[in-house]
């Protein structure tokens, strides 16, 4: 060894170049030396990593490792890489001083930049960044689906760095002393060689580590896909003809539908969807929905997810803050949960900004808390899921505009209860009438007894009435089957509770026992999650869309003391987006007369489509569905005719409503004083100001253009106002042009 030290510079240079050659062939330091990588059967992904120079090696290997898992990981790191690569000297000048070249090249090997003395700073910065992220930004990391692997790697990486510093120290570098040109120039050839060797080792270690991890990942993926295949096979064996393919993540392209089918099939198995899949399932569905919306999510996200409260939001902000600890989820109420509450607030505010017409409704706090819990407190995913649930799963106006859709659902629920549990329904009706009689004529109205509880059930999607596990099972179904699950769950619960209600002798008794049962349900004292889930799945099917339609145009009695005059506008508001309301008022009747037939055909078709979409996964279900369907088809015709008559009647009445001074003064006799609590500030969007309407009154001349094809849009123009509107039967919406 000592003899080596005496060797001339010339020899050393040759040797080092040789070494460097080997070194290079392993790590392929420059992009042009790509072919040098020979790390065995390593996955393709690795080859990209090994094209980078040593300093970027570590950063890039991370990219490679996490690419599949986490695209958005730390753009800071990668930009740092690019930076250093750009500035890397490409020229290998043949200088007169070979030693100088040697050192420069070595420096280049180490840093990719001959001048770099900022390596340590950068690295330390990176290290701090990683640590910061590790500790503070758990959500970011949780993005990586194989986060444990990622963490391993990060920790390992920090170790490697400490190894390097150890080597440096052993070579005589002190503390945080930089490995720079001057230092290297001082070093003897032997030491330089040692240094190169140490870097080589490090580099090899990184490569080996990456290869091992990637192999492991490949293996796991193979195991996973095998298991998915087994599940698929199991599912297929249960559902003979249908080709169900199960996978955890939705395959790209057309695979989404199959994936949904697979998920549905798993959902029906005892035990339901494994909770490990839940987050993936929810986020996949929500993302799919968001991607279909005509919005640019990234922009929208920036606009809604922030902490700046504008002036008009302050009141809502106060309300939200008041509710933050009242979610029933313990994560959000303690003294040490400021971070969780802050997240919850951001999500709630973001939704309110996303849909100002809905804003914040009490109950959202509970829903958002459950979602945040499932998605590991990732606010963006939570927001998407919330949007999907409120805008897609639930009908419009469930939480806004006097909660009309909810009223409709309550009425539908009454009807279904009557159909499926006639004895209970009659009993409760009897108790209700009895209570009304006791109070005498001035006693006012008594809503259906179950309303008090079902309203809560529907508004919080059962989160406040069932224990968490059962709630999540119900929500899984809700994501996959839509809002019909809400109705089915309510029916299933009522069915389970029926035996307690039948002996009750007064409304008071009913309310008392129900309050008690509700608490016991929440403690799983009455039935477990599995029992609930199976009960829900066994509720017979019904055509929810048709039922909703029916009760939308036939406002539920006894639900609210609103005058009948309000019903028409309610019907309108429920069916159309509120922006179109004013126009709709004026045009509705003309339109109906002209196009009733095609609209009804369309509605029927839509009804058919939606019930098909909700069809069972097994073929028997489908067959049964088909048989039912033919029956439904006839029924649908009948109820469509009813609806048509109803619409006509309403349309006829419309004139009398809008020519009167105010929409609130009802021509109805029995309930003039029946709206005692005219709650003060009405929604400002409410078209209660009649001055909006005169120019669109039905008796003003309108020109309606229709075409033969029943699916082509109808154009309506009003010469008096120069307004042109068109109604597209396929999309069931009115647009103004």
């Amino acid at each position, binding site marked *: 060894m000592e003899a080596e030290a005496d060797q001339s510079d010339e020899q050393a240079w040759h040797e080092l170049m040789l070494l460097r050659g080997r070194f290079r062939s392993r790590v392929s330091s420059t992009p042009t030396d790509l072919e040098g990588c020979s790390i065995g059967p390593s996955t393709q992904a690795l080859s990209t990593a090994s094209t980078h120079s040593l300093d970027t090696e570590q950063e890039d290997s991370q990219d490679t490792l996490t690419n599949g898992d986490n695209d958005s990981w730390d753009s800071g790191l990668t930009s740092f890489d690019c930076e250093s690569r750009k500035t890397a000297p490409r020229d290998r000048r043949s200088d007169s001083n070979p030693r100088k070249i040697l050192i420069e090249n070595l420096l280049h090997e180490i840093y990719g930049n001959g001048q770099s003395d900022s390596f340590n700073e950068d690295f330390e910065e990176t290290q701090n960044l990683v640590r910061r992220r590790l500790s503070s930004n758990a959500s970011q990391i949780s993005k990586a689906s194989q986060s444990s692997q990622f963490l391993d790697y990060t920790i390992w990486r920090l170790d490697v760095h400490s190894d390097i510093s150890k080597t440096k120290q052993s070579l005589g570098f002190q503390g945080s002393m930089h490995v720079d040109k001057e230092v290297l120039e001082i070093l003897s050839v032997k030491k330089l060689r040692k240094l190169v060797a140490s870097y080589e080792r490090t580099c090899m270690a990184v490569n080996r580590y990456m290869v091992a991890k990637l192999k492991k990942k490949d293996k796991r993926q193979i195991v996973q896909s095998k298991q998915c295949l087994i599940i698929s096979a199991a599912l297929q064996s249960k559902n003979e003809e249908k080709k169900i393919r199960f996978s955890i993540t939705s395959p790209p392209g057309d695979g989404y539908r199959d994936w949904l089918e697979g998920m549905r099939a798993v959902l029906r198995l005892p035990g339901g969807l494994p909770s490990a899949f839940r987050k993936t399932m929810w986020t996949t569905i929500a993302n799919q929905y968001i991607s279909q919306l005509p919005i640019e999510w990234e922009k929208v996200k920036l606009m809604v997810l922030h902490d700046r409260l504008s002036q008009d939001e302050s009141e809502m902000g106060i*309300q939200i803050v*008041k*509710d933050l*600890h*009242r*979610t*029933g989820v*313990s994560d*959000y*109420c303690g003294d040490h949960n400021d971070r969780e509450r802050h997240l919850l607030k951001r999500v709630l505010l973001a939704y309110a900004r996303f849909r100002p017409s809905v804003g914040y*409704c*009490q*109950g959202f*706090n*509970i829903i958002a808390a459950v979602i945040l819990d499932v998605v590991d407190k990732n606010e963006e995913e939570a927001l998407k899921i919330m949007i999907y649930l409120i805008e897609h799963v639930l009908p419009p106006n469930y*939480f*806004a505009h*006097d*909660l009309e859709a*909810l*009223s409709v659902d309550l009425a539908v629920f009454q009807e279904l209860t009557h159909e499926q549990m006639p004895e209970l329904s009659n009993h409760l009706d009897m108790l209700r009438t009895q209570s009304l009689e*006791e*109070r*005498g004529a*001035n*006693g*006012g*109205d*008594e*809503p259906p007894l179950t*309303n*008090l509880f079902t*309203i*809560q059930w529907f*508004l*919080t999607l059962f989160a*406040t009435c069932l224990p968490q596990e059962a709630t999540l099972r119900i929500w899984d179904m809700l994501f996959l089957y839509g809002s019909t699950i809400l109705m089915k769950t309510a029916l299933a619960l009522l069915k389970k509770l029926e035996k307690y209600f039948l002996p009750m002798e007064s409304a*008071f008794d009913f*309310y*008392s026992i*129900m*309050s008690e049962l509700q608490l016991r349900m929440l403690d799983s004292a009455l039935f477990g999650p599995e029992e609930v889930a199976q009960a829900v799945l066994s509720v017979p099917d019904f055509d929810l869309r048709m039922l909703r339609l029916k009760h939308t145009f036939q406002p539920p009695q006894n*639900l*609210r*003391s609103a005058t009948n005059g309000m019903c028409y506008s309610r019907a309108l508001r429920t069916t159309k987006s509120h922006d179109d309301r004013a126009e709709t008022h004026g045009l509705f009747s003309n339109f109906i007369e002209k196009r009733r037939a095609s609209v009804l055909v369309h509605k029927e078709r839509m009804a058919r489509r939606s019930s098909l979409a909700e069809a069972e996964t097994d073929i028997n279900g489908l067959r049964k569905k088909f048989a039912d369907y033919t029956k439904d088809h006839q029924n649908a015709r009948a109820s469509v005719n009813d609806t048509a008559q109803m619409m006509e009647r309403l349309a006829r009445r419309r004139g009398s409503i809008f020519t009167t001074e105010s929409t609130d003064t009802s021509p109805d006799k029995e309930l003039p004083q029946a*709206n*005692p*609590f005219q*709650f*003060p*500030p009405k929604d400002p969007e409410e078209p209660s100001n009649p001055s909006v309407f005169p120019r669109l009154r039905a008796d003003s001349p309108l020109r309606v253009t229709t075409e033969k094809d029943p699916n082509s849009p109808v154009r309506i123009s009003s010469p008096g106002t120069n307004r042109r509107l068109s109604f597209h039967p396929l999309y069931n919406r009115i647009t103004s042009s």
Partner: protein
Amino acid sequence: MAASAVASPRVHDFKVVLLGEGCVGKTSLVLRYVENKFNEKHESTLQASFLTKKLTIGNRRVNLSIWDTAGQERFHALGPIYYRDSNGAILTYDITDDDSFQKVKNWVKELKKMLGTDIMLTIIGNKTDLEKQRNVSVETAEQYAESVGATHFQTSAKLNRGVEEVFLDLSRRMIEQADKQDAEKRALSPSSRSTAAGNVVLLEETPAAPIKSGCC
């Protein structure tokens, strides 16, 4: 009017409704009264919820059905029905929040307009445990309560201060009101029997809640 005229021992079924702005402590008051619990993390009330309490005042048995309502206004569209035939109303404000007191005034107006003097009103300033942050003075509140014929109480559901008294006082007044209405009826139909008025002795069925320091 829900008091049913049956033979002694008389049973009154009274309906009491709690109204007030969101987060003033309506649910906490009821939970404290009915179950003697205080739960800082209970869920926001949506629309309405229902609890019952039985008590005996003198020779009268009283069944209170207590309707707790949602603070957020959008829920009111669903069910003004729940308070229409109440015998008593408890209007709650938060002593640290003047807006909530203004809201109480609105409620009084509404109730008076609809139900006249048939309904017994109690105004409550809740959260006296936050005395330091008080924004509504006792005098103002009492003056106002007197002017509208309501009784005024200060409570702390958290520390269990004054909650019991609120419901007792309200129950007594509702009984008096029921008697008055009965008397009016009797005047119309002289054949009906006389009811024992008697002195009012408190005999609760459930033992009075031990007054302890705050919980949580």
